[in-house]
């Protein structure tokens, strides 16, 4: 059964080739879009890391201010 030949009409065959070509192009498009999504995702992660660093820096400064205010200077 597996060795039986399969025949497709010539006009259908041409259409099938066209569809195959379209599928190939669509796959390329999807791959490019997915790549762009990955880029944006890594950009987003970089931004979030920067936020984290900024928060830590601000926290450090606030700690310093808090420490200074809780130890008043002598007159």
């Amino acid at each position: 059964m597996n060795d039986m030949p399969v025949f497709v009409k010539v006009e259908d065959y041409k259409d099938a080739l066209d569809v195959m070509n379209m599928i190939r192009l669509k796959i390329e498009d999807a791959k490019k879009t997915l790549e762009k999504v990955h880029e944006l995702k890594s950009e987003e992660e970089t931004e979030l890391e920067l936020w984290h660093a900024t928060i830590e820096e601000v926290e450090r400064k606030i700690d310093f201010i808090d420490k200074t205010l809780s130890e008043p200077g002598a007159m």
Partner: protein
Amino acid sequence: MAKQKEAHDFFYVGVRDPIDVRRSLLESARETIHFMKRYEKLQSVRTEKIQMLLKLDTEVKELRALMVKLRKMFPTAKMHTTLPIRKPQCVVCNDSFKTQALLVQHMKRHEPKKVDKKIKPEFIEPDENLSPAVVRPSKNKFANADELEDELASIEKKLEGLA
């Protein structure tokens, strides 16, 4: 005279390193403003990402439609490709087994003997990126940006004065 008297009634607390405290305060304010500016950027990145995901979704749907179209072009013969039978294999030692049950039994050997109960399950953050609220642009976006710029310029000026 009354004002002078009132002024004498107050007590004051001295601040050590007042310039450093002031500088830290101004720098913290500046960092906070930078933070808020970066939020705008992050929001635009997220919006663009959502647009790209929607585009990807459309492309995949089109691809699926093309696949259906292609399948219809081929004759509906009752032919099934017989795929080679894949024996269950151990991922650790690469041994093959006749049945899945035998593999499961074998895998018990590779399991760690003691499981630490203190280990908590990994927390998976909810994906807020696909939330429709993120796409909605703020009305006062540009007004806020201008305000932030003004505030930042004022802080920078004060910091220059300190230096």
